[in-house]
């Protein structure tokens, strides 16, 4: 029997045991070598980078027909088909056409695999590591404020109007770190600060439902933070920044707080080290600390991060990745102001009774927060057509309240402990160069204990196991037409009494009607299961909130037509224009429910959001000047009443400009505008003074930087024109601040 298995194995894979190899040279059209050009055998883990003379070699290849992709920054990518006979050692010479202007952007979120951004059949925006560094981005909300179609309402991320404002409870955008979900176990909120800021390769923002690939939470979109790979030479980076909040210009506001007239400092330090220790092992580590005294009373915070990632490839066909992250944060959470005349002081509200002037401010509860993320994965390339990945994830968070009076930590039993953990297996099959398929299974669970929750059983400990099966097909119907389809089935055991299931399909087409010009049509479903906090919160300490065991999942459906492309116009002009029609049902939002004499999360009636988005990017021929602008229009309506959805800005503009000024000195600016929401509705406005006040947001950031050897210095002025605004009710947006940043990279 054993011999039969060996014979069978040899029959199937025997040819792959021979020593086929591919070597050659990558040249430009002018015949110059292209150092560092990437040569990858598609659908396998095999590949190589060209050396200084453009030479490469890929040993131990399987025999048969292989599709090889060749790419290098500044050149058009190319794909070649190679037939390797058993034992053949083929030598080739390939050329790449100079592209100069277009970046080699790739995305992974749209299809769970890397693909050129230009050919993705859905709307995706990319924030590069360079952009994040230029803006001194230290948290995700800072980064996303510059993305077209994304609105940040304090700590709530809103993609194309999918979210209103619900105090970061139940995010309608799924956040992932290296493809693994990272929402808090209690409220499904986005941990905006749980990021290895200096080791981010890029942030991808998928605009539109992503549940067919990623399940619950991807109702309005997906944010995927991709961490860096390892450099060939060891790299150390040390970064320090320090700055100050400028006192607000109005004496009325300053007088409300004892420190209102002072410049309030903030500073931070981060260090990272990365290296490719050997061809089979690489790692990076990063830690950072920052302290911010805050521009409002009781709004300060101390944040510590530690992140590490390691990759081990014992054989070319095996890969093991492990990412570990730790975060500890002590913060005053400024929730609402005292009034529009006293915006720097937190409010004092005695709910339901006349306000007690001696009550401690409950508009700013203090918390100590710890988070841990552990993300291992294993990839095995079976042959040229098959590979599979197994990914694990553990994300834990602990929230411990701090006593306002004594400043000491309260008992853990008065806070929240939650873990989200699970695993998924993904099988990738590339039967032909024009066909790619993905099949997968995932299993996750949530365990949360909170003094604020009472589950169906009356216990304060809850679990929410979930399982899913998904598949994804990409088919090139012709040279110019690509079809993508996906289907996912999710099963949620909310508690002993409730099970939720959901089938999420998606279909899309991408048509290249002219080289570099792609038209796309995408349709998909999204859904979100209510979070623990929304279903089970039962508490009367700050507000009377009662649980709602009848809460149903939210659902969305989206259809989008878009065109993306680029032309030469005194440089390179790229654009992306799209129109979309999104429908939502069962939106979950907190409302005052008279029958319960309290607030409760409830499902709201259906809503429709129609809109359009236009993005342009232009870079001059010498690559010294780059400008980017995006405009988003939203028309959001409740179906039953025809009223606008609350807290959605109808018009949004984001713009940025970067220019080399002189030698190694560069400068830039970022501007963002969002119009006053057409409707502001909040039950909080009933008892929080002036919470109905909203307005336009118009913020200009300026930056200038210079480099000398391994050193870089930058000065950044945020909100340079000192424009005052509120991002969400009863919270003044960040005023003007100045930052000096020094970086050493070797």
């Amino acid at each position: 029997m054993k011999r039969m298995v060996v014979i069978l194995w040899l029959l199937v894979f025997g040819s792959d045991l021979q020593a086929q190899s591919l070597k050659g040279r990558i040249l430009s059209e002018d015949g110059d070598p292209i150092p560092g050009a990437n040569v990858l055998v598609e659908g396998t883990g095999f590949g190589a980078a060209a050396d200084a003379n453009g030479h490469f070699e890929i040993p131990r290849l399987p025999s048969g027909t292989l599709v090889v992709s060749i790419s290098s920054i500044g050149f058009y990518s190319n794909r070649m088909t190679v037939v390797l006979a058993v034992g053949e050692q083929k030598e080739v010479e390939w050329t790449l056409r100079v592209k100069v202007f277009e970046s080699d952007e790739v995305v992974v979120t749209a299809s769970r695999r890397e693909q050129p951004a230009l050919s993705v059949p859905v709307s995706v925006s990319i924030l590069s590591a360079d952009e994040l560094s230029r803006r001194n981005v230290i948290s995700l909300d800072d980064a996303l404020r510059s993305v077209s179609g994304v609105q940040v309402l304090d700590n709530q991320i809103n993609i194309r109007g999918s979210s209103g404002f619900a105090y970061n409870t139940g995010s309608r955008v799924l956040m992932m770190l290296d493809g693994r979900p990272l929402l808090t176990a209690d409220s499904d909120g986005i941990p905006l600060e749980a990021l290895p800021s200096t080791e981010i390769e890029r942030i991808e923002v998928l605009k539109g439902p992503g549940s067919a690939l990623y399940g619950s939470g991807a109702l309005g979109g997906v944010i995927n933070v991709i961490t860096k790979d390892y450099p060939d030479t060891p790299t150390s980076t040390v970064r320090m920044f320090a700055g100050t909040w400028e006192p607000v210009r109005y004496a009325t506001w300053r007088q409300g707080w004892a420190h209102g007239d002072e410049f309030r400092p903030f500073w931070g330090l981060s260090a990272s080290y990365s290296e490719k220790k050997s061809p089979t092992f690489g790692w990076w580590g990063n830690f950072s600390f920052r302290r911010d005294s805050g521009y409002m009373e009781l709004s300060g915070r101390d944040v510590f991060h530690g992140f590490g990632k390691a990759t081990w490839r014992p054989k070319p066909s095996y890969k093991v990745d492990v990412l570990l992250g730790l975060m500890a944060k002590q913060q005053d959470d400024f929730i609402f102001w005292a009034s529009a005349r006293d915006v720097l002081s937190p409010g004092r509200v005695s709910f339901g009774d006349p306000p007690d002037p001696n009550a401690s401010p409950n508009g700013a509860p203090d918390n100590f927060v710890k988070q841990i993320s552990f993300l291992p994965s294993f990839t095995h390339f079976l042959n040229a057509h098959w590979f599979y990945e197994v990914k694990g994830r553990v994300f834990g968070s602990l929230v411990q309240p701090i006593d306002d009076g004594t400043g000491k930590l309260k008992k853990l039993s008065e806070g929240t402990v939650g873990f989200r953990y699970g695993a998924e297996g993904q099988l990738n099959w590339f039967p032909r160069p024009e066909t790619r398929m993905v099949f997968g299974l995932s299993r996750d669970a949530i365990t949360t204990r909170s003094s604020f929750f009472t589950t169906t059983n009356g216990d304060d400990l809850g679990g929410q196991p979930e399982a899913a099966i998904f598949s994804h097909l990409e088919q090139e119907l012709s040279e110019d037409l690509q079809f993508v389809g996906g289907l996912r089935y999710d099963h949620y055991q909310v508690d002993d009494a409730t099970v939720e299931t959901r089938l999420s399909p998606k279909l899309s087409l991408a048509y290249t009607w002219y080289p570099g010009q792609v038209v796309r049509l995408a349709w998909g479903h999204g859904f979100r299961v209510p979070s623990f906090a929304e279903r089970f919160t039962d508490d009367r300490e700050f507000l009377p909130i009662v649980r709602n065991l009848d809460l149903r999942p939210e659902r969305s459906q989206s259809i989008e037509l878009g065109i993306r492309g680029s032309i030469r116009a005194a440089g390179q002009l790229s654009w992306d224009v799209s129109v979309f029609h999104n429908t939502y049902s069962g939106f979950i939002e907190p409302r005052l429910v008279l029958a319960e004499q309290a607030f409760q999360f409830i499902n709201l009636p259906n809503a429709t959001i129609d809109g359009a988005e236009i993005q342009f990017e232009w870079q001059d021929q010498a690559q010294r000047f780059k400008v980017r602008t995006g405009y988003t229009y939203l028309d959001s309506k409740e179906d039953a009443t025809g009223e606008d959805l609350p807290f959605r800005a109808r018009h949004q503009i984001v713009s940025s400009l970067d220019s080399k000024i002189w030698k190694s000195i560069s400068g830039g600016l970022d501007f963002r505008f969002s119009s006053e929401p057409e409707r502001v509705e909040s039950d909080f406005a009933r008892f929080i003074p002036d919470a109905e006040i909203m307005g336009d947001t118009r913020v200009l950031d300026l930056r200038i930087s210079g480099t000398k050897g391994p050193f870089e210095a930058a000065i950044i002025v945020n909100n340079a024109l000192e424009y005052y605004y509120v991002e969400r009710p009863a919270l003044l947006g960040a005023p003007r601040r100045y930052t000096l940043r020094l970086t050493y990279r070797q």
Partner: protein
Amino acid sequence: MKLTCIILLLSLSLSACDHGLEPPDFSGTGTIVGTIEYVGQWPAIEELQDLRFVGMRFVPRDTSDFLQLNLMAISGGLKKQVDFDEFRVDEVTTGLYLYSGIAQKFDADLLSWRPVGLYTNDGGIFSVAPNQTTEIHIRVDFNNLPIFPPTQ
């Protein structure tokens, strides 16, 4: 092209020069003093959990509007089982008060309040001016309670 981009961006940026949100004007505060006359049969003591004067700068639609504390002037607790009482509310937001009276909390629930007597002179509307005292009188007849919500 470069110049067009710069001009466009500068134009956009200059739209932020007006500084946006600013502190609203403060029109000062006033004082409300009042007298209350009680007639009729007082409710049972367990239904008299609280009793206060409430002046509203709006006409309530239902009991949920009792949460609009920003738009209300509320006195301290009033005496119970008396024929006559007085109240005073200082630092009251100025402006028109459209619906005011004596409110009784009859149960422990948050919204278990009901009006038992309304200010009815001048159509039930009075005004509070900066640094001025407004005097009002309210008659409470426990045998003939006001209809709530009010018919507009």
